[in-house]
């Protein structure tokens, strides 16, 4: 049964903004006329295949490509030795010790995970490239392997990067408030020895890749790709390649899902650039599914060790302290930023004022981690939600009441957290009421009894979560004070062309978020026309001059940064249009209005210029004007007003907006097998003003599906030798149609006071589904052994283990009361 119920279609504005208009992108996509990078061909292009390491940790003794080169149809190869000569190691975000990591486009000297690219082979067809790759002879000297973060920090562990003097990439103590006093005054201290957030990622259906052309005359590469953060990619690539960023033209159109996983393809893109130059021909690479699973953008795996929670007798929670151990995998491609990004949501949705997290990130012989939907905050929010449910479980508090009591309250908004982040707006208790109503909370006990009569254990769970958006990149300086990144930006241009065409370009790289549609909605309202006649260019092209250093689509920000830029440019153009009309009509600009596709005198609609006339004048018919007519072309850079955070106190506002979701679900567990089913599910979202409610709901649904997959099915599991056990969609089960529970959604709107449109970034969803499924399982097990859920990943066999040996997880929790 599928049930989708949507409530709350409140809109705060008249016009196109706030309406669920159909998406402009849809027509080409349902007709198979989208242009994804793999659809683009060039004459004489070569296909690239990467030879990858079968060892998780080994020295590269020798590489022989001669047999491959002799194969007819093979155009050439690239090895790590060549890369080490032609490029410098990628710039590292980390300070020491992680700053000493030497990372190249291909393995140099040794390999550090199974699937690491060692050699690239280029041939006339993709089949030939793959065949020839098998002729490359690589001799390895295997080393000991470490795949468990807890072992990687132990003395004597195999060391991945000798230059770092160990496996730690970053460590730091994050403490705010008076933690010792909070614990001294607490009536109860709840201790949780170990919680584990498992490794998975969003596995976009389209794989990574690019078509790369080198123009010998200009020394410029054109990179047609699906990288979702071109601003970051060129910052990484250009210095490594010893060229200026202008030499790297990044082009995208349609991207088949990203979810953060397509941010760190820069090593492969560099290899392709070197090959295009070396072989003097376009080269094309499309990743294989197994390659993606083995090597690309795993989500951060994290342990929370020796957690303690300070609780007052009435249930007020005053603080927590814990040790986080984050597993970054073998290289730091975007890491160790995960080591700070969690602190955007340090207290979760709760009023905790005294916090201490001792954060250590380590490197292991597994695929490198990179952003994944909910990046780093999801892990931490899961931790805060586990705390709430475990405290309730151990001390006998009602989970709903405990949340109501400890949530940051609406009258506290905007709320400054203990670490200086500012929650811009929101009404968490109201959202909680809404989700309880959707799921029918009052009937849960009755449903529990009914399930029991059928031999099933029923459980109910809540997951409260935040989706912080619009990063202040100054937070990177909390990890590495020498970095020169701060703030944020995004760019848009809006112009009126010769025949009155309204043309919008964006700096973003949408992957299904409907930017063409929502940008058109914003422009239409400002220019007084219908969204249908606003033409938003599809994709990103660094030739358009509509991008800046942080351009891209990531980290829940388009509705703020992207649409903020669109609004600014459209308002500029509107002023230009009114100015030109006032010049023509020789009246004050204040007398002009834009409406119905005209610039006209507000109280004399006969005096009206169609957009076509306005576009033609400066572009093609400009003689006779005493002063320059406005160019009908506006470029706007949106910049949120951030400060660089206090590096000593680790204090400051790290993100501009805080969307919120509360999820609730009901599960039924079969006691004999541990097999369980989600029988009811509800999610309430608050992302401020919704420009297009249907698109917002689509994002909530997608994030929910990812969370269900992560909680029940999806894991990147490794054996002790570092072999990935889930390298394809057979072994790595993503949810299918039949896995999906009935879903009810609703929305409330708490407009952000800090953004141009009252919007908040959203889309990542904060893993609310993982939190609520864990909570529901723990609730169901209350009737049979009272196991504690200590992992984010709970497949059926783990539930079965919890039913059989509940004391194992119960033994990880202890309560000390005054």
């Amino acid at each position: 049964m599928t049930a989708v119920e949507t409530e709350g279609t409140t809109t705060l504005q008249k016009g196109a903004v706030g309406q669920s208009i159909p998406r402009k992108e849809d027509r080409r996509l349902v007709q198979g006329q989208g242009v994804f990078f793999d659809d683009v061909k060039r004459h004489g292009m070569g296909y690239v295949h990467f030879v990858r390491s079968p060892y998780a940790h080994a020295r590269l003794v020798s590489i022989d490509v001669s047999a491959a080169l002799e194969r007819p149809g093979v155009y050439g190869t690239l090895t790590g030795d060549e890369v080490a000569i032609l490029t410098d190691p990628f710039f590292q975000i980390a300070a020491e010790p992680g700053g000493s990591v030497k990372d190249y486009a291909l393995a140099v000297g040794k390999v550090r995970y199974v699937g690491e690219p060692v050699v690239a082979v280029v041939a006339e067809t993709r089949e030939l490239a793959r065949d020839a790759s098998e002729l490359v002879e690589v001799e390895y000297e295997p080393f000991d392997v470490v795949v468990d973060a807890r072992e990687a920090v132990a003395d004597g562990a195999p060391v991945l990067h000798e230059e770092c003097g160990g496996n730690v990439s970053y460590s730091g103590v994050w403490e705010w408030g008076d933690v010792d006093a909070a614990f001294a005054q607490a009536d109860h201290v709840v201790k949780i020895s170990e919680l584990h957030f498992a490794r998975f990622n969003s596995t976009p259906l389209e794989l990574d890749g690019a078509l790369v052309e080198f123009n010998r005359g200009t020394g410029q590469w054109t990179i047609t790709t699906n990288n979702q953060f071109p601003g970051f990619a060129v910052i990484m690539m250009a210095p490594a390649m010893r060229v200026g960023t202008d030499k790297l033209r990044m082009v995208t159109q349609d991207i088949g899902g990203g979810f953060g996983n397509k941010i760190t393809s820069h090593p492969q893109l560099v290899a392709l650039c070197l090959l295009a130059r070396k072989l003097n021909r376009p080269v094309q690479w499309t990743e294989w599914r197994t390659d993606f699973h083995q090597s690309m953008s795993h989500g951060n795996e994290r342990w929370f060790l020796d957690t303690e929670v300070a609780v007052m007798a009435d249930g007020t929670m005053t603080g927590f302290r814990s040790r986080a151990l984050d597993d970054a995998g073998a290289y730091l491609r975007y890491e160790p930023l995960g080591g700070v990004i969690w602190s955007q949501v340090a207290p979760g949705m709760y009023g905790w004022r005294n916090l201490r997290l001792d954060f250590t990130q380590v490197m292991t012989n597994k695929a490198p981690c990179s952003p994944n939907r909910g990046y780093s905050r999801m892990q931490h929010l899961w931790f805060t939600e586990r705390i709430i449910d475990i405290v309730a479980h151990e001390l006998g508090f009602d989970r709903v009441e405990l949340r109501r009591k400890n949530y940051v309250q609406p009258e506290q908004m905007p709320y400054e957290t203990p670490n200086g982040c500012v929650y811009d707006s929101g009404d968490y208790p109201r959202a909680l009421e809404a989700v309880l109503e959707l799921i029918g909370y009052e009937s849960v006990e009755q449903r529990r009894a009914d399930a029991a009569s059928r031999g099933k254990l029923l459980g109910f769970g809540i997951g409260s979560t935040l989706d912080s958006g619009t990063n202040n990149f100054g937070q990177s300086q909390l990890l590495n004070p020498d970095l020169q990144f701060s703030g944020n930006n995004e760019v848009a241009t809006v112009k009126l062309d010769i025949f009155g065409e309204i043309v919008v370009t964006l700096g973003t790289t949408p992957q299904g978020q409907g930017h063409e549609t929502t940008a058109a909605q914003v422009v239409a309202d400002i220019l007084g026309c219908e969204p249908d006649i606003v033409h938003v260019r599809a994709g990103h092209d660094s030739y358009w001059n509509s991008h800046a250093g942080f351009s891209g689509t990531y980290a829940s920000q388009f509705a703020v940064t992207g649409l903020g830029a669109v609004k600014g440019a459209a308002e500029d153009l509107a002023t230009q249009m009114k100015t030109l009309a006032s010049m023509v009509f020789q009246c004050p600009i204040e007398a002009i209005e834009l409406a119905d596709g005209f610039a006209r005198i507000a109280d004399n609609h006969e005096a009206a210029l169609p957009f076509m006339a306005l576009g033609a004048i400066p572009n093609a018919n400009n003689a006779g004007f005493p002063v320059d007519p406005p160019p009908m072309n506006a470029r706007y850079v949106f910049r949120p007003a951030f400060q660089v955070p206090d590096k000593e106190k680790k204090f400051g506002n790290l993100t501009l907006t805080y969307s919120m979701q509360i999820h609730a679900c009901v599960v039924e567990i079969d006691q004999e097998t541990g097999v369980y089913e989600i029988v009811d599910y509800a999610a309430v979202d608050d992302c401020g003003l919704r420009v297009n409610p249907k698109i917002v709901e689509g994002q909530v649904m997608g994030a929910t599906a990812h969370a269900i997959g992560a909680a029940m099915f999806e894991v990147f599991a490794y054996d002790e030798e570092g072999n990935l056990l889930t390298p394809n969609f057979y072994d790595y089960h993503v949810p299918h149609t039949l896995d999906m529970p009935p879903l009810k959604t609703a929305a409330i709107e708490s407009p952000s006071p800090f953004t141009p449109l009252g919007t908040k970034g959203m889309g990542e969803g904060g893993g609310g589904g993982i939190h609520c499924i864990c909570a529901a399982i723990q609730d169901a097990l209350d009737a049979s052994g009272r196991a504690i859920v200590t992992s984010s990943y709970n497949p059926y066999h783990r539930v079965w283990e919890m039913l059989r040996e509940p004391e194992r997880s119960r033994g990880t929790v202890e309560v000390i009361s005054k």
Partner: protein
Amino acid sequence: MNVAATPVSEKVVTVTVNGTTYEHEVPARRLLVHFLRDDLGLTGTHIGCDTGSCGACTVHLDGVAVKSCAVLAVQADGGTVTTVEGLGDEELTPLQQSFSDHHALQCGYCTPGMLMSATALLAENPSPTSDEVKVGLQGNICRCTGYWNIVEAVVAAGKGSA
């Protein structure tokens, strides 16, 4: 008497795709999906996995929905293929329109395969229930939507055509 035949490495195939008949020499091992995308330039059919799991490459071969990554081009010899480009002409089919109306696509990468599977389903069962749609689409992975809107779109299109 058996004589070991020399393995055939190339073969000329004749395939009718979206109403046009093509005669093409292809490597014997070429997958139908690569024949469609690379030889014929019909890039609406997508590839999302190596294992026949995701359904992004679904097309109709002789009226049956197949995963074109699990069929060799030579197996389609003499056959009739319909791809997403062959659904409707300039106008959207009711199913395509329903996908847009119900926001049943985000990135659009799985969409061609979804449409081909759902079109085949509707041909067999013009008014499927949501459970029947779920069974009919279980071979197609979508990572953006969570399927809810896709199931709604197909059910609604079915009612429309009934």
